[in-house]
């Protein structure tokens, strides 16, 4: 039975987008204009904090190209393992190198890893998800969608670690192979989010309207699907950033992440492991900055998603 749209026929003349007469005004009880205004204020609060943190981290990275308190590569055995002091605010590491300098320079690599890994996963995973969803809608396309999703599962089954080891072996361990491996491992996540978002959008009436006015599939994908799933993809990106940065840190644990002497927060964290009971601040500073970066990108992600679709989440098709 092909049920005609039985969505409510109640009056939905939306008096005033900002008016709070929630249940009265709307066709479906989901609209919460009041909530979105309130959450609107909290949303851009989290965005401001998020953006602030991200700017701090990116700033650190950029400044490090121009100036750093000390030269990251010079080794000063005399100044080994000092804790915080005026000359070395964050103290020094086993080679007497200034930890603050290393944090600044390390920001570059960590940002690079996060951005590239997420970039790979986003640019490959999202289109796969969208294409797979479009196929799922065609009667003959079911199988292709199933195949793509099963391939997605297999990729999920492949540990990022194994990819990292193989890439490291083939191209010699370093930031590059680690980033690519972590990025590839994050593809299934994006594919899944993009597919479920696209399926939702394709079910909407405005897509039916677009098809009725002769828009071709690729146009619908770009004009209608992408903007409407951007919110979900952004959130996935902010979470993926956190996971990628930590994965790189984990890989350096196995000697596969960024190699000496390039500084990266992950490696600093891993190498400080030996001194945790004697010089805890060696692990403290990279840990804090990783937390700040991850927090920043997550809050920015949430803020962008809220600002990006103030009404969308209430009117989910």
């Amino acid at each position: 039975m092909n049920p005609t749209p039985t969505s409510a026929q109640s009056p939905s003349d939306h008096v005033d987008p900002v008016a709070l007469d929630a249940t009265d005004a709307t066709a479906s009880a989901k609209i919460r204009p009041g909530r979105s205004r309130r959450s609107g204020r909290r949303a851009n609060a989290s965005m401001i904090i998020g953006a602030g943190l991200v700017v701090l981290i990116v700033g650190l990275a950029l400044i490090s190209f121009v100036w750093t308190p000390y030269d990251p590569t010079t080794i000063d055995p005399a100044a080994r393992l000092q804790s915080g002091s005026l000359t070395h605010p964050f103290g020094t590491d086993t080679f007497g190198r200034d930890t603050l300098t290393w944090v600044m320079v390390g920001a570059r690599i960590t940002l690079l890893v996060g951005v590239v890994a997420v970039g790979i996963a986003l640019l490959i995973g999202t289109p796969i998800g969208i294409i797979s969803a479009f196929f799922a809608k065609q009667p003959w396309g079911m199988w292709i969608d199933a195949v793509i999703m099963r391939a997605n599962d297999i990729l999920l089954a492949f540990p990022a670690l194994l990819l990292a080891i193989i890439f490291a072996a083939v191209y010699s361990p370093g930031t590059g192979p680690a980033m690519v491996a972590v990025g590839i491992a994050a593809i299934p996540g994006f594919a899944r989010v993009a597919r479920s978002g696209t399926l939702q959008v394709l079910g909407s009436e405005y897509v039916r309207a677009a098809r009725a006015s002769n828009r071709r599939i690729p146009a619908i994908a770009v004009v209608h699907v992408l903007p409407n799933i951007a919110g979900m993809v952004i959130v996935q990106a902010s979470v993926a950033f956190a996971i990628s940065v930590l994965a790189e840190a984990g890989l350096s644990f196995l000697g596969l992440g960024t190699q000496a002497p390039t500084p990266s927060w992950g490696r600093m964290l891993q190498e400080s492991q030996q001194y945790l009971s004697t010089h805890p601040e060696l692990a403290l500073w990279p840990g804090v900055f990783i937390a700040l970066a991850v927090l920043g990108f997550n809050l920015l992600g949430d803020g962008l998603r809220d600002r990006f679709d103030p009404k969308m989440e209430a009117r989910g098709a």
Partner: protein
Amino acid sequence: MLTYAINRAIQFALSLLVASVVIFALMSLLPGNAAQVALGTNATPEAVASLEAQYGLDRPPLIRYLDWMGGMLTGDFGTSYVTGAEITPVIVDSVQVTAILVIAAIAVSILIAVPLGTFAALEQRNWIGVTISAISQVGIAIPNFLAAIILVIIFSLTLGWFPSQGWMAPIEGLGGFLLRLVLPVVSLALVQAAVLTRYVRSAVLDVMREDYIRTARAKGLTKTKALFAHGLRNAAIPVITVAGVQLATLLVGAVIIEQIFVLPGIGSELVRAVANRDLVAVQGIVMVLVLLVLIINLIVDILVPIVDPRIRNAA
């Protein structure tokens, strides 16, 4: 029901086949081989060549692949030419260690995340809710190996409550087994709980806006009772799927924790096998991993319709 089972079985078989080809190809990319590794720094070219012959590395790839596949079909992952031992028992043993570790970690993270996430959703307006979601944001940023080391220093070295490493099988001593399980499980669970809390919070928030919660309140339930009586089961579906994905990624993700706590898990086995270029072992392990992930997906696909009748008897 039967067609569904057959359908899934075919997908299983196909996925495993594709995975086996992919892993075999990847392995052949790896520079260096088991013979070189075995003979180390005082190897001579002739010794390497003869050992390669002994290991059968000189046979063409296709034959090696078919030989390996043949063995696998009979459940025998072959003998590792590097260690000279049967691979299957090693895999079975290490998979169980990791399975226990990871299932316990996910269970703990669910026990932490569901109440915390629900509470954060209920109290999202006031500072409690905000602090919980802030903690969960920061929680995501702590790498599990850092958490592990800190836990060891506090609970094992200073307080001495738990041993700092080692694995003891349950039959050898339940007490020892549990004591050695606590710290690794907690270090794994912390990060996963932080991630899961965020998903639970947004799932509960969505559920709270549903009409049937308002109906439940109209029936005479207070807001929180309505949520627990009706909301949580509905919020369970997204949580199950996320927990499934986390379980899958942790199978190998736990390797670092396995190394810090010296647990003979499948992750460490994989890293060791790759380091020794013990390709037959690596291929065996990855096949088991792929099988496990497919089983996890199947269990999730079985659980979801049980929770949601709508999916059970289809649109």
